[in-house]
């Protein structure tokens, strides 16, 4: 049991749940690092006959035929901005509960979940557009690696939104107080990690082009 005003009584002096969360996030770095590397390795690989298979992420000419690129940078920039701002609302939710402000916690938690859902809606719109343009998991290696990478990221955001909504429901029942701020902090760590992964994806996959 913890003693008021002193460090937690674990062998490290740290809360084991938080330590486990950081270990999990460290392992997630490897997971997303591998997926990003796979995308960069395979996005330009040609088909079996040595000819690149459309569609492509950017405008490109193949054998004299001009293909229009799929990426819509202004749209993705807005998505990236929305996710980035959700990190701000998440940290404000934590600051609220650390001050014992339950109302603030509810407002900021719900705002974060809404921004997360907005990001997911944008991703669904983008995926649908790409599908209409002929890109699928099996159309070419760009499609395979792109959908696997961004799909896994979207799955992480979805899990994050579910966690936020369940915490929000718990706060509505009045079951989260200042003493439970670690629960919000852990959810926040996960959410911020999802955000920093998108910071990397947005730059390396969307903005930086070969």
């Amino acid at each position, binding site marked *: 049991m913890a003693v008021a005003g002193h460090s*937690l009584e674990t062998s490290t002096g740290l809360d084991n749940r938080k330590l486990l969360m950081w270990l999990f996030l460290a392992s997630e770095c490897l997971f997303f690092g591998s997926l990003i590397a796979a995308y960069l390795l395979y996005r330009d690989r040609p088909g079996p006959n040595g000819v690149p298979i459309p569609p492509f992420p950017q405008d490109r000419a193949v054998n004299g035929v001009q293909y229009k690129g799929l990426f819509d940078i202004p749209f993705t920039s807005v998505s990236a901005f929305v996710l980035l701002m959700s990190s701000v609302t998440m940290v404000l939710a934590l600051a609220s509960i650390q001050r014992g402000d339950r109302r603030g916690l509810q407002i900021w938690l719900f705002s974060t979940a809404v921004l997360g859902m907005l990001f997911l809606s944008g991703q669904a719109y983008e995926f649908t557009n790409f599908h209409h343009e002929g890109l699928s998991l099996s159309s070419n290696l760009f499609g395979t690696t792109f959908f696997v990478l961004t799909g896994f990221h979207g799955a992480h955001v979805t899990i994050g939104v579910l966690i936020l909504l369940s915490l929000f429901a718990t706060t509505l029942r009045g079951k989260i107080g200042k003493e439970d701020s670690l629960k919000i902090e852990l959810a926040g760590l996960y959410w*911020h990690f999802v955000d920093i992964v998108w910071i990397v994806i947005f730059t390396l996959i969307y903005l930086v082009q070969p």
Partner: protein
Amino acid sequence: MTLAEYRKDRPETDIHAGPETPREAGSHAHPGPLEYVRIGLVLAVITIFEVALYYMGLSHDLLVVFLILLSAIKFSLVVLWFMHLRFDNRLFSQLFVAGFLLAATLFLVALSTLGGKLV
């Protein structure tokens, strides 16, 4: 003084910590909401600047350097301030940096040995 004695007798310096919120060893008080909003504004400005750079028609190499630099700044701001690595126990930083460096090494080795291109 043993480590256990230090933990037991360490003076409490966090004025915001209530009696029901025990502090982690080696942690400092987190910043307030205004500080978070300031960081959020900086992040927003950097993102707008990134997109503006993309359309400015800079040379490709220069653009890549700027974009990766700005992305690294955003990454660091979120990790240090929003995830509190700047204020929390160093063990958390060490764990995360170890995972990140391992991932970065794997990333660079995979790209260099399998013929991938970053830019």
